[in-house]
């Protein structure tokens, strides 16, 4: 067990956990930020996607000890005020079905449009390739990303 001071959603959060505990479980069960989801535990499905210094990472496979003073952003903190334009676009297109994978999808999409104001189909395919949706919401995700990029 060790004490960690983590920068999460622009706040310093203190936790005392095993150093190999993945960031995912620190967020979910220590800090009660349940928006980040558990899907596979091996960085294959993307349900646990959060941002580390603005880049999407799989929190299920990042031990808390490796976070250091990196800035973590989760779905709960993705927009400082109101909804991020990706979240707005998700609502506009009614993207989710069961909804479980969508936090991760949104975090990948936010990272994409924050760094690319006009993503092509190929850009979207690449940026979203780490996120599985079993319900098959991909066509609406693609449309929502394009709409958001134009906002």
């Amino acid at each position, binding site marked *: 067990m060790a004490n960690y001071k983590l920068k999460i959603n622009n706040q310093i959060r203190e936790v005392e956990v095993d150093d*190999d*505990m993945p960031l995912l479980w620190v967020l979910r069960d220590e800090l009660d930020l349940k928006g*980040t*989801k*558990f*899907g596979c*535990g*091996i960085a294959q499905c993307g349900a646990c996607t959060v941002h580390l210094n603005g880049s999407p990472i799989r929190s299920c496979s990042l031990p808390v000890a490796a976070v250091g003073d990196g800035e973590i952003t989760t779905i709960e903190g993705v927009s400082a005020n109101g909804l991020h334009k990706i979240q707005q676009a998700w609502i506009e297109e009614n993207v989710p*079905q069961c909804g479980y994978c969508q936090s991760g999808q949104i975090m990948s999409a936010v990272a994409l449009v924050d760094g690319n104001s006009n993503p092509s189909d190929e850009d979207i395919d690449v940026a979203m390739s780490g996120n599985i949706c079993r319900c098959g*919401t991909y066509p609406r995700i693609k449309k929502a990303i394009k709409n958001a990029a134009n906002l």
Partner: protein
Amino acid sequence: MKELTMTSRRNFLKISGLAGGGLLLGFNLQSCKDESGNLSETEINAFIKIKPDGTVTIMAKNPEIGQGVRTSLPMILAEELDISWKKVTVEPAKLDDRLGSQFAGGSQGVKTNYENLRVAGAAVKSVLVLAAANRWGVKPENCEVKDGVITNDSNTLHYGEVASEAALLELPEKPVLKDPNKFSVIGKSTKDVDLEKIVTGQKLFGLDQSIEGMVYATVVKPEVFGSKVKSIDAEEAKKVAGVLDVFRIEGMENPTQMMDGVAVVATNIWSAFKAKKLVETEWELPSDYKSSASDLHKSLAEGISKKGQILREDGDVEAEFARSGEVIEALYEVPFVSHSQMEPMNFIADVKSDKITLIGPTQTPGGARHYANIITGIDKEKISVEFTRIGGGFGRRLMNDYANEAVYISHKIKKPVKLVWNRENDFLADYYRPAGCYQMKASLNGQEISAFDVKVCTTSRKLYALQTENAHKTEAFPDQEPAGMVPNLRVTYEPILTNVPVGPLRTPGVNATTFAYQCFIDELAEKAKMDPIDFQMNMIGEEDRDLPYDDHGGPSYNTGRLKNVINLVKEKSGWSSPAPSGVYRGFAAQMVFGAYVAQVAEVSVVSGKVKVNKVYCAVDCGRVINPLGANAQVQGGITDALSAALYEEIDMDGGKLIHQNFDRYQKLRMKDSPDVEVFFVESDASPEGLGEPSYPVLFPALCNAVYKATGIRVRSLPLKKHNLV
């Protein structure tokens, strides 16, 4: 479970005042009769609440697995209540016998609730109007209602202002239902009621829930399906900080209820996951198990060579085969497919000495309560079940094995527990779509099928669940098209039992037979030198008929509606014009669970690999309640089926499951997701469910297109094993 039947409205609907003013409607969609046929007591429950300020709260009664019923069912109530959707708040219901069936499966949600919810909404509206009319001393017929506001000449009252008075009135037995031409909620695209909560990451799902004082648990599952725990060495596992206990979970006799495993209990889930890897379990292997997919293939081949049970026999297939001289034959095969829903199995159970609290994602909350009673002996009346939004169902959560495990663990450790499976558990203890093989034979007389013979052998779900009767149910469908359309037809079934767990997965059985039937009919069309759509239309026949269908979606189906969707997809896909260069089309159609579906898939081949560009889908599901949700269901069903068709199967090595996570078990991702365009037939017919119908038709539409593109008849799935993706 006792049969539930509709009874008179007097018992069906109950109304009462709401504390602090207002109105509360409780009702049984299906009032319960006990064994003697007497009505069991009906009490009030909060189903529709109208507060003095006019706000309306509607409970969403059925589990939400992504099929949209938390939105579509309340829409039906709001419509007849004559209140605009924006004034409605939807709250999820708990398990409550007074709400009738609370179940998600078989595309039944909208279909079985539509009429009852309309009556309930209309009945409440009628007493609200009567209350207003009484206050004004006028006849209710002379009052009008618009968006929750009642008017008569210059008099105006909103629902909230008369709700308390209305609550004292008797509900009408047969309220006047709205003219469907005046529907303003039903048929209007409506966004998911949880949409904003989903996109902001709020605590909607089972895995997001917690209960005071809970500990965490996970399980160890055997790598060879059906193994039982022989011994456990937990010494190393118990050294992990936070681990509280390690013990055997003794499976129930019926493996669909609970399978053997080892429980690892800890103060946090990460400790439990770490300790799980350190548990040394000696497993007693099942006496017979499948060592690999090719071993399974052998068993299916043996099964299909047996005589089998004849399920339907029209005319004389053998005589026609002998007469015709040429018999066309093909053997189709499907693998075990995983549910691989995104939210892993989880459940919270708090078993106290005299009561139980259950919270979690289940498609059958009543089943969770039933088994909690069996495991603990605690009365059902003392068991409460809260069912959460569900991160994917697809039939997996029709089994409550994981909920039962949570009960078992909490009962043993006498603490509230949150059970969380990891993804490996999910694969090691999935109830797979049965594997099967389909021996198809037919003869042609000119351009018509003169005899059609199907022999099915699958790993029967019924046998696996220890039911010996009707092993063919959800495996083979005696009335499936072209039954009734060809003079000689025979359907035969032979079940096999293996150690691999099997269960319902999106259109159980139909998702496999539709592949075999509709691909084989495409082969016959080619043999007859006919366009596949023309061949099938000819087979269905000019006259519109109601053909008997003694299975889910029956008791009959209409050939005219089937032809309509075929014509619609033909038109929308531009089937009659040549496809663009390098694009190849495939077609398939089927009545699925009461809805009619026709699809055209367009594929191309890039460097020898198949690329699905677009799928056109025409659907007749009767009246569409929520076009936005309906479109998503059809689109999603097609995308999901494409994932299975391209990639999905499990295999074993020496009996041990190879595909235990998404690194080996491949799922469709964004880059392979095609454009899907959906067209609904406008219809006044009763609504049918849509969670499943589009799914099975994609398999043959795709493979028929792949044949056009490559000349390869894909008769066993997935395409991956043919090196086509």
